[in-house]
């Protein structure tokens, strides 16, 4: 027992000394392992800090009160978790009881408790450019109970109901000296304050009575005094209030005391998310191991002679392993420590950035020691794994060969490539199976698992590929030939680097294909609602004043042509078209018009779902008093029965049969149901009204912004829509850039690692080359050749393996809906060739050029033997 | 130098007369150890007295030939299967010279060593040149000659190595407490 300990102590000491002696290599490993640890540490700390837990947030929600009681209109019974924000449900059915009032709350809770009411809501206010929205809160700012809900940052609290304080976001909108609400109320701004919970949205605070919130207010009561118990919370629940009680949050009831309705379990992660999480962890671990592995391999090689002598002197393979593993422990611990410290420091430094991007106010700097310990452990684990393979190789090495000075690794084993082939086949099979499931569900997980399995299989095949490349290198120029053969001879160092590059490229290619194909589907299936560049102005609320809107538009863009659209008023009526005995002609419809049936005597220009011939037929039928109807498929009829069903009041319906032109639409969707001639509407007794404005345009972007604001100024329910065709969402572009960037970084890392280590290893050979008369710049050529071999082989392999899950995932991702209603091709496939070629060809070449430019060009002259 | 056994082994092949024996000996040893006829006859007489050889009659030219007796054959066989003992090392003039040089004051031991080494090296070079010229004809006599030559080569090499070793030891002695004379000698070597 003691010998084992002393053996470890010796090994650790050797490892520490070795690490200090080879600083560059140790630094490489440190960075390799510390970075992921730091990254996860930053993420975890930021997340922990941003998520204000129950106790931290209490002051922000409760002030100094014992509980906050949220009153809901309608008096429905409430079911809640200890923290109502975690889970809340209502007993549906609206019994219509009166909502509780402030005094009712006090009566229910008993005792002589201080109470104060808080009202919150949304109001519109005037800004320099028009109208804006703000969240407002009415509360008794002097009451000690509310202390902690808002923070005064300048000026003073309002003294009366005609004064108000606003937050920085609102002040930025430049309201002026006073806040003018939409209903004309003028309030003097006497200071600025911030909500302690939320940022990023304009807010105003005032005393009770400042804002006229009316029925739309959210009412809450802050209750002081003795703690509010769970029983009291349940009692209030029954009366239609949700309660956040300090006492309950501090000491929550057990699960069985919770109402059944909310016992769905808290914080459950569904299986899909868990799978993804596990896969991500595995992939990151794999990447770290693959990248750090070569560094340990070289270390093992340097010690090979020592280890061989140990073996020759009677040491066991276990003792040899111990020395190499010890370096894994030493570097792993150092890296984990470094990463953790960096993580905490990085989170502290970056917190302001994150706060800016978030709309909740972060809590106090929250470090979760247990989480960070887990992440650090992960770092040590990956260091151990990365050292494990070289350790195993070191203990099995041919003692004789090493003592004889023969460098290079043993013959490749037969078994692992076979296993690799099996895994690869399995992975491909899983992907194919997942693809065959299509959109029926259950296909994503096999594909994801199959992708990881394929990558693992590919890793096992890399030695074979490298050996093959070496064999084929006879005809290549000297630096490439040397690099290829040397790479094959030192597989322990080459294979992990090539595998890391290949794994990265596989991921980038697979995700790239998936994202691109998804984009392609969105692009192809996009249906324009209006002709390109045209726009509509609509208002869905009653009493829309089209003249005001038209005036507003012309006010900011006098050159635009404005047309009126008329349609059937469907607030109290529903129109249906029938043909033959078909019940429903069009599955779905809807567009930027406020009506689903337009009224006109010719086909409005705003409609896009028809071609020229159909438009002509439509014009003809409308001018002769008929109707134009959109339908899912071809309809063999020349007349249609139009039905108008009235709702409310006396109900009833009217119908008429008219000549009709049917237009079949793609995708079972059209912007409107159809167009009827004015006579038809009259015959039906339908109410015809102005339903919006149509601007044929084309509307340029700058003008569009102005029109939008002007429209919003007329009435807040007015909306303005310009057809710009399919626009690639920002997220897609960002995702593709992130993929390319990440791929480039990882590939660069892997290639540089391999090249640096190879050059260090090859010093004797480079010295021989120099002795034989190689020019000093040959070192550059050899370095570049190493980089090219590793980068290109890895990239090509990775692209081939990554293409399989990439293509497979397009089936479930972009296939037609499984309920059979969706038409379209079985999948959309768009291979982002630019990305793929860039990653497979461009990046290796770039890396090669980089290495070639930065490698030292002096050959070692005299250090010929290690 | 055992002339007696050399002659016996020559007679092992066939009966020979005195002068012939001398010729054969010299040709097989490359003339390294010249032998005069008188020495041959004296040795033959002694061998006959010891009963190892006997007269074998005359050949056509009238030379008196000798041949081995039974005991003679046995003697030859024993000689070939018995290693040469190193019990009494021959007196080595060089070793004596060096031993005296180290202890006698006023002798430049360093130069002595270097001069001797140079001379031995020259001899070694000469032997090596002879070796190059000796072709690989495959004849047994040439092989024998080669072996003898090699013995000279190895001996010269051994001497040079011993001289290197002496030099190194004397240098080391210069850094330690030694009798004044040896220290002085060592100083001369290192200068």
């Amino acid at each position: 027992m003691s010998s084992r300990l002393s053996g470890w102590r010796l090994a650790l000491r050797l490892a520490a000394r070795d690490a200090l002696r080879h600083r560059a290599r140790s630094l490489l490993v440190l960075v390799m392992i510390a970075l992921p640890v730091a990254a996860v540490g930053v993420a975890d700390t930021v997340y922990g800090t941003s998520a204000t837990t129950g106790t931290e947030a209490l002051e922000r929600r409760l002030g100094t009160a014992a509980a906050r009681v949220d009153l809901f209109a309608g008096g429905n019974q409430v079911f809640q978790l200890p923290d109502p924000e975690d889970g809340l449900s209502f007993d549906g059915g609206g019994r219509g009881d009166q909502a509780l009032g402030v005094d009712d709350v006090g009566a229910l809770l008993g005792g002589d408790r201080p109470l104060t009411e808080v009202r919150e809501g949304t109001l519109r206010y005037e800004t320099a450019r028009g109208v804006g929205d703000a969240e407002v809160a009415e509360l008794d700012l002097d009451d000690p109970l509310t202390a902690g809900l808002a923070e005064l940052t300048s000026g003073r609290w309002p003294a009366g109901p005609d004064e108000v304080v606003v937050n920085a976001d609102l002040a930025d909108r430049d309201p002026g000296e006073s806040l003018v609400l939409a209903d004309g109320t003028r309030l003097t701004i006497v200071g600025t304050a911030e909500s302690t919970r939320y940022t990023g949205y304009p807010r105003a605070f005032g005393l009770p009575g400042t804002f006229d919130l009316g029925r739309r207010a959210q009412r809450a009561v802050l209750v002081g005094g003795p703690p509010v118990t769970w029983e009291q919370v349940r009692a209030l629940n029954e009366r239609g209030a949700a309660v956040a009680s300090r006492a309950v949050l501090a000491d929550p009831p057990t699960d069985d005391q919770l109402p059944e309705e909310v016992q769905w379990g808290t914080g459950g992660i569904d299986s899909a998310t868990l799978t993804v999480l596990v896969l991500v962890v595995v992939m990151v671990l794999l990447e770290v191991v693959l990248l750090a592995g070569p560094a340990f391999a070289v270390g093992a090689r340097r010690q090979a002679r020592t280890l061989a002598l140990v073996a020759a002197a009677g040491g066991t393979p276990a003792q040899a392993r111990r020395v190499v593993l010890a370096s894994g422990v030493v570097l792993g611990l150092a890296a984990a420590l470094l990463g953790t410290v960096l993580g905490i420091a990085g989170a502290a430094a970056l917190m302001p950035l994150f706060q800016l991007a978030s709309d909740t106010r972060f809590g106090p700097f929250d470090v979760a020691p247990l989480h960070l310990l887990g992440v650090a452990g992960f770092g040590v684990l990956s260091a151990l794994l990365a050292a494990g393979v070289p350790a195993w190789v070191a203990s099995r090495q041919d003692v004789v060969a090493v003592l004889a000075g023969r460098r290079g690794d043993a013959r490749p084993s037969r078994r692992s490539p076979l296993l690799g082939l099996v895994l690869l086949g399995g992975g491909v099979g899983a992907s194919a199976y997942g693809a065959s499931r299509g959109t029926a569900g259950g296909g994503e997980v096999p594909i994801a698992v199959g992708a990881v399995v394929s990558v693992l299989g590919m890793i096992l095949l890399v030695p074979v590929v490298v050996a093959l490349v070496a064999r084929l290198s006879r005809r290549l120029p000297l630096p490439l030939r040397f690099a290829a053969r040397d790479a094959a001879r030192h597989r322990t160092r080459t294979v992990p680097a090539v595998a890391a590059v290949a794994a990265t490229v596989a991921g980038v290619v697979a995700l790239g294909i998936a994202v691109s194909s998804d984009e392609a589907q969105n692009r192809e299936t996009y249906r324009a609602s209006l002709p390109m560049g045209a726009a509509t102005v609509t208002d869905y609320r009653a009493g829309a004043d089209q003249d005001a809107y038209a005036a507003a538009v012309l006010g900011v863009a006098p050159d635009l042509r404005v047309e009126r659209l008329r349609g059937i008023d469907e607030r109290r009526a529903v129109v249906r078209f029938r043909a033959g005995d078909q019940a429903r002609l069009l599955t779905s419809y809807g567009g930027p018009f406020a009506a689903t049936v337009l009224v006109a005597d010719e086909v409005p220009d705003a409609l896009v779902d028809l071609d020229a011939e159909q438009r002509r037929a439509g014009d003809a039928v409308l001018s002769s008093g008929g109707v134009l109807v959109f339908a899912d498929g071809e309809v063999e009829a020349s007349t249609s029965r139009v039905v108008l069903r009235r709702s409310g009041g006396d109900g009833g319906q009217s119908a008429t049969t008219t000549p009709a032109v049917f237009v079949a639409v793609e995708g079972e969707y059209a912007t409107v149901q159809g167009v009827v001639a004015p006579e038809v509407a009259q015959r039906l007794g339908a109410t015809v009204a102005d339903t919006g404005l149509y601007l044929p345009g084309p509307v340029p972007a700058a003008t569009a912004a102005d029109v939008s604001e002007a429209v919003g100024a007329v009435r807040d329910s007015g909306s303005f829509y310009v057809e710009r065709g399919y626009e690639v969402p920002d997220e897609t572009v960002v995702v593709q850039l992130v993929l390319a960037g990440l791929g480039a970084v990882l590939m660069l890392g892997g290639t540089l690692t391999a090249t640096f280590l190879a050059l260090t290893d090859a010093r004797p050979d480079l010295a021989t080359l120099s002795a034989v008369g190689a020019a000093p710049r040959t070192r550059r050529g050899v370095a570049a050749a190493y980089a090219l071999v590793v980068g290109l082989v890895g990239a090509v392999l990775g692209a081939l393996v990554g293409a399989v899950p990439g293509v497979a995932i397009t089936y479930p991702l972009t296939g037609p809906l499984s309920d059979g209603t969706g038409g379209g091709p079985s999948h959309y496939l768009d291979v982002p060739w630019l990305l793929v070629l860039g990653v497979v060809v461009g990046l290796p070449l770039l890396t090669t050029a980089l290495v070639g430019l930065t490698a030292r060009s002096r050959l070692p002259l005299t250090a010929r033997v290690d | 130098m055992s002339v007696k056994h050399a002659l016996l082994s020559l007679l092992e092949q066939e009966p020979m007369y005195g002068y012939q024996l001398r010729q054969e000996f010299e040709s097989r040893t490359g003339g390294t150890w010249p032998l005069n006829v008188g020495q041959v006859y004296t040795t033959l007489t002694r061998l006959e007295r010891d009963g190892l050889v006997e007269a074998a009659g005359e050949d056509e030219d009238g030379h008196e030939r000798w041949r081995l007796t039974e005991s003679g054959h046995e003697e030859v066989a024993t000689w070939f299967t018995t290693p040469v003992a190193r019990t009494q090392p021959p007196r080595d003039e060089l070793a004596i010279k060096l031993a005296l040089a180290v202890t006698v004051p006023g002798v430049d031991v360093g130069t002595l060593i270097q001069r001797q080494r140079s001379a031995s090296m020259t001899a070694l070079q000469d032997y090596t040149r002879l070796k190059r010229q000796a072709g690989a004809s495959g004849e047994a006599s040439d092989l024998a000659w080669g072996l003898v030559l090699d013995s000279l080569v190895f001996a010269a090499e051994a001497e040079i190595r011993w001289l290197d070793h002496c030099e190194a030891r004397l240098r080391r002695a210069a850094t330690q407490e030694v009798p004044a004379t040896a220290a002085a000698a060592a100083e001369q070597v290192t200068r």
Partner: protein
Amino acid sequence: MSAVLRLVDVHRVHGEGEAAVRALRGVSFTAHAGELVAVMGPSGSGKSTLLTISGGLDQPTEGRVEVEGVDVVGLSQQQRARMRRTSIGYVFQGFNLVPALTAVENVALPRELDGVRSGQARRDAMRALEEVGIPELADRFPDDMSGGQQQRVAIARAVVGERRLILADEPTGALDTETGEEILRLLRARCDAGAAGVLVTHEARHAAWADRVVFLRDGVVVDESGSAPVEDLLQASHP
């Protein structure tokens, strides 16, 4: 007979001040075409430094080094590399060959580095391999050859392309007697054919193959044996 290699009063000092190590202290040395010169000395005597300076791998602190009449000291790194590709051949004790290349590729190395097309370079290399008697090992890797075979390949590489100066640093150190002798026989034959050879060794038997044996002690030439330096014969008054 011209001097292929000439060192005139060469000094080489490593480091400075207290820790300075003077590897060579005023060494003058010549090797002529057709001549094999051996350099003997204990470790630390400067014999390896003598060789590296002769080959342009190291620069002397003082003194002149001429190879085929060209002053090597003033040349740039590129030019010295060029000399090693075309005029000077090196043989070391061990780790001579690049393990990643086959025997013929190793031998062809200097030619390929000089820009000769690989087909032609390979032909030159095969010729050299035949000269040293091992053409059948052309496509073997160094790992699959014995020490003696590796050294023969190294010699082939040192002589490929008709090089005039061969520098050998303890080439027989790791070999047994018989194999070592074969290596020396090759070197000797090469010198007889017109090259100049400098052989560093600590084995007297092997040094004996040389025409001249130079003894180095502490960076100084203390003696020479064998036939007198040719210069002395021709130019008795030359210092």
